[in-house]
């Protein structure tokens, strides 16, 4: 909200897409005639059926909440405003969309396989999706996935990338099998250091051999109970946008570790050096730097557990109400690999803080619900600021935290505006 001009989703008629849609339709007509099968078969074609030889006109916004902000549509990057995230378990409709490349639209679930390879496996092994589901025990966890760049819009000088505000985070329920069970079945060598993933997304420049993103995690994180090879989100097949039919899910770490459209995992004898593991991608300086500083590559470190953070999801910013009313404020708090210990809000810009009710997480790495009833001393304009403190006593800063070249890890307090009359 602080950079409305900069971030307002530009509204434009997408003439290119219209052209493409039209071309697709005319191709359908042309195809029917060329094939000799008259167009009339269209009349008996199942609703929404698209002939195999035509690319599906996939729209990632279908089924998403009203009010989602499109940051970019090539590649697709979309975030909800905070009040859309009020549910304890985030529904599909309000999950942010983050892509480095193009969403693969040609998924064949029946022939889908997962290969476990790399220097540090005893022997490379490939499983079909069905084998994975049958052979290994399923587990279900609520896991927080937050984009490393969530809050980037708050940094100055501006950091490059999608200018996320608060919404690139969610906590949904994932069902899948434990990565550690599969790795045990494959057999990993004692020199294993890191895992890396490969997915089926496609590079923007059209080169089919170019990997879009291939990140990973150290063995300790990979072998945690909650690190899943997931095939369900909120009890249903994972939606295509979010990684159908198989996704690596590592809660509490930058969401880019949770590789979508997963088809290969490599167990490495060194830190994985895949696309977006190097340079300044998902890395921050090893030491505090001045805003705008150039930081040598060797002085950058990979982001691991995300920092403590919270959101006010009710009420939506802008609420006006009478002084006689007690205002219920609620939201979520999370802290990467840690639990949140305390939750506070202030209505006087930090001069005094009030302690909120805070629930325990549904499971490790799930976000926690908090709430408080507030009364206001007199009519006027107020801001409610929310601050979480993690199990180690680390709190969210009220100002924007230390600047870094790519604008990661902005965990500054979230705030809303209210007017009391």
């Amino acid at each position: 909200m602080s950079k409305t001009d900069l971030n307002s989703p530009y509204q434009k008629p997408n003439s290119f897409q219209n052209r493409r849609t039209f071309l697709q339709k005319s191709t359908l007509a042309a195809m029917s005639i060329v094939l000799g099968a008259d167009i009339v078969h269209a009349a008996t074609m199942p609703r929404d059926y698209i002939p195999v030889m035509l690319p599906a006109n996939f729209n990632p916004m279908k089924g998403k909440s009203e009010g989602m902000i499109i940051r970019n549509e090539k590649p697709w990057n979309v975030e909800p405003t905070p009040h859309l995230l009020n549910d304890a378990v985030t529904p599909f409709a309000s999950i942010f969309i983050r892509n480095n490349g193009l969403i693969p639209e040609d998924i064949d679930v029946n022939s889908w396989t997962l290969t476990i390879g790399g220097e540090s496996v005893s022997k490379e092994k490939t499983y079909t999706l069905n084998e994975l589901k049958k052979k290994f025990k399923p587990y279900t966890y609520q896991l927080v996935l937050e984009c490393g760049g969530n809050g980037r819009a708050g940094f100055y000088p501006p950091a490059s990338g999608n200018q996320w505000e608060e919404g690139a985070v969610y906590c949904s329920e994932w069902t899948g099998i434990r990565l550690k069970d599969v790795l045990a079945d494959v057999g990993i060598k004692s020199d294993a250091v890191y895992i890396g993933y490969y997915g089926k997304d496609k590079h923007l420049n059209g080169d089919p051999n170019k990997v879009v993103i291939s990140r990973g995690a150290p063995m300790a994180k990979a072998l945690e109970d909650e690190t899943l090879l997931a095939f369900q989100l909120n009890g249903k097949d994972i939606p295509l946008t979010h990684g159908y039919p198989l996704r690596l899910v590592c809660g509490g770490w930058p969401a880019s570790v949770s590789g979508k459209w997963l088809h290969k995992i490599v167990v490495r004898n060194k830190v994985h050096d895949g696309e977006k593991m190097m340079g300044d991608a998902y890395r921050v300086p090893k030491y505090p730097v001045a805003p705008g500083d150039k930081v040598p590559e060797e002085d950058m470190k990979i982001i691991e557990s995300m920092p403590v953070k919270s959101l006010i999801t009710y009420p939506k910013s802008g609420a006006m109400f009478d002084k006689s009313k007690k205002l219920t404020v609620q939201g979520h708090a999370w802290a990467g690999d840690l639990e949140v210990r305390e939750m506070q809000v202030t209505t006087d810009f930090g001069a005094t803080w009030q302690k909120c009710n805070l629930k325990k997480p549904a499971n490790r790495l799930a976000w926690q619900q908090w709430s408080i009833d507030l009364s206001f001393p007199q009519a006027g304009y107020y801001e409610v600021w929310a601050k979480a403190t993690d199990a180690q006593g680390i709190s969210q800063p009220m100002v924007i935290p230390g600047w870094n070249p790519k604008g990661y890890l902005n965990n500054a307090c979230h705030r809303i505006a209210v007017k009391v009359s």
Partner: protein
Amino acid sequence: MNKLPDNKHSPSQKENLQFFDSLFKSVAGLVGIVMLVVGVVLLVVFQPEISALQSTDPSEISSQLPESKTQSTDQIVDGKDVETGLIAGEGLEIVKGSCTVCHSSALILQNRFTREGWHSKILWMQETQGLWDLGENESKILDYLAENYAPGESNGRRTPLTGIEWYELKD
């Protein structure tokens, strides 16, 4: 395809259905032929752009762009290019031809850098993303970006909240 007839009808409607079915077939056939003709015309019109998008050879893309540009209409409304939302200005055509081939203009619209900052983005795209050598266009692109998409002033570590949509809180 949303207007396709529903297949679940009662038997009494069957005759009617058959009549409408054949009527639909004939009409659809005619529509099909018309659409084919229009489709072919449009294909011819947009051919350069389509082949440029499908091509994987960067040099081929760049060599084809000037042709497609001469045929596209670049409508400017309120000082902005309607197709991309980019600010109208010297170098807009080259920016459209070089940048939005691969990615959305939104990547430019939501970022703010100095000339040097934009240059480092170009270098990064060339080193890692397969962007071709921009030749003499590079400085024109940088001029455009630095002029139109430069960082604003800093307003401190938390700016006043803006764009608040006030509403009456019910219950």
